[in-house]
């Protein structure tokens, strides 16, 4: 198999959300000592991009979106140690702290956004659900994050998004991090009212908004 075919196979494995195949190909690339940067940039990334296109065309729905994103995650878990060993730095679009705010245990939407952001080249730290507001800020500072993503599914917990932004303002940190908000009851108007930097109607839009905020 030549290089081109191999890369196409990789792309296909991501488009089809075939995790076993995607992982097998990643291991093969390692064994064959291939240029991992190229494998990622010309194989896996075009795959996830194609998934995004299929989503926009209305051909792919949530299950395809997430299985493909999870494939990417699994592949990166295999390739990451090798990349670190050889000191290859992957171009990251930015570092993201994400979680569902305090008092809210709903995390399916947040998981989706985290997966898709990570699959699209963001460095994602997922704090989980019911995350203390202070923790978002603390971790964002220690990790030198670029973006803080706050998810809320309840009208009663949405207020947590507002509180995080207020706290950032009080501590003069608002210039340091961009804040994205999302979740079922959240609207663009709410995002504007509380002074969030961005809002994503769904996971794919969240990626676009995040990319825009990073100037990418």
């Amino acid at each position, binding site marked *: 198999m030549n290089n081109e075919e191999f890369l196409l196979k990789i792309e296909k494995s991501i488009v089809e*959300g075939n*995790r076993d195949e995607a992982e097998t190909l990643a291991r093969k690339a390692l064994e064959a000592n291939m240029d991992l940067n190229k494998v990622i940039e010309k194989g896996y990334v075009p795959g996830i991009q194609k998934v995004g296109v299929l989503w926009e065309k209305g051909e792919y*729905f*949530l*299950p*395809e979106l*997430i*299985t493909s*994103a*999870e494939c990417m995650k699994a592949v990166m878990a295999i390739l990451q140690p090798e990349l670190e060993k050889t000191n290859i730095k992957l171009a990251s679009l930015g570092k993201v702290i994400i979680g569902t705010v305090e008092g809210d245990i709903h995390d*399916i939407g947040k*998981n*989706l956004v985290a*997966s898709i952001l990570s699959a699209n080249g963001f460095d994602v730290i997922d704090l989980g659900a019911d995350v203390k507001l202070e923790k978002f800020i603390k971790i964002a500072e220690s990790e030198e994050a670029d973006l803080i993503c706050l998810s809320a599914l309840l009208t009663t917990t949405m207020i947590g998004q507002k509180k995080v932004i207020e706290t950032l303002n009080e501590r003069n940190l608002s210039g340091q991090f961009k804040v994205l908000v999302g979740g*079922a009851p959240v*609207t*663009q108007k709410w995002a504007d009212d509380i002074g969030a930097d961005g809002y994503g*109607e769904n996971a794919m839009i969240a990626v676009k908004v995040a990319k825009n905020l990073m100037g990418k």
Partner: protein
Amino acid sequence: MIQSVRPSIKLLSKEFIEKIIDEAFVILEREGVFVENKEALELLREAGMRVDQSSQRVHITSQLVEDCLSSTPSSLKMFDRECIKDYTVGENCVHFNPGSAAITIFDHKTSEERKAVTIDLVKFYCLTDCLEHIHFQSTGLVSSDVPEMVSDSYRLYLGLQYSSKPVVTGTFRVEGFKPMFDMLAAVRGSRKKLAEKPLAIFDACPSPPLKWSNLTTQSLIDCARAGIPSELVSMGMTGATSPITIEGTLVQHVAENLSGIVICQLAEKGTPVIFGGSPSSFDMRKGTTPMGAIETMMIDSAYTQIGKRLNLPTHAYMGLSDSKIIDSQAGFETGIGTILAALAGVNIISGPGMMNFESCQSLEKLAIDNEICGMAYRLIEGISQREEPLAQNLFEGFTSETHFLSMAHTRKWYRKEHTFPKLIDRDTYDYWVSLGKKSISDRASEEIDELLQKNPPTILPDDVTKELQKIMLSDAKKYGISSLPELKQ
């Protein structure tokens, strides 16, 4: 794997069904039916029935009815224009077709009814052709730009050119049969091929109570001899042209249908006949015939059950509305009727697109109703066992972090277990606002333009089109009509 159950609905007990059938038999034998057609009266007399020539009343014995029932096929097959797809009409198969024959079209732009013209009929047929859940087309609109005398053949003339689907049609005049039969034979290749692979069903409506007009009787006889299935459309109106009680209307309905079956079988033994109708609950306040009334749907579902007991293919006018605009009433009446019809297992369901009793067709409503039909198909597919084990393996080692979105199981099954209608609004509020706060009929109107653009009709071979034109023109000329509206391909 455990077999899925086909969801169904039954309105009558076995005992009740038998009682209704018994009374229908008694009426046919004792009181008889009116048959205003000489040829049919002659056939009945030859079969040994007591015929009163002056009143045109004929008494039909139970024995003859039984004989005719046993020679009527319990199911039949319809074939599309190209003989690529066939459809079984019988058992619990369900096929939707647009309600017929409207005299007006609902204009989306003005939100008003108006007379339909050729271009509307063309659009209507093209749209029917590309709607997934509408299996048959029907000559559902009357074109006001051709003289009334040829409006029956003209509908079919256009329908055959702009849709490949099997067609439910009918005559408006005794002379209408010949040109319509010729057109069907021209499309199929020959009369013999048409009889072997039916392309059209002809509706025939008795006049309640218990009368077969000359026109409809002739249609029954002509169709029987041509091997064209007749669909009997009895339409008693409770308390006006049939008894006020549902049971009473059912007795009359069954008697009318059985007498129609007898005429068909005497004309040609073994010819396919469909046990159908369009009865209604008559509104005593307004003097109207609501097709969306729950009682109308109860009568339809009940006679369907009787038709099945008699081992006949069935038809009903269900899944339509009396509303004058595309509003909540249009949606719920259509929705309830469509679901009930599917559950009752009506083989041919005429209704989609129809509103304002049976007088108006709407392209937008037809596109919306197509999605309701899709829901009905999903419902009667039932719940299938997909996997063994069902799901216990999915929970192996589950944690509080487990979710199902990323499971291969989800990706494998979600499109089979769930349907994704296009026009029904499932957007978030903000997204809906961003799209312009559109109503379902606005979305339907846009979708129609897109569908028609993407799916041009399959054109008939040149010689067939020319033959159709020839037949249509010669029919028109008999009435002194020398030209017909021009058709743009």
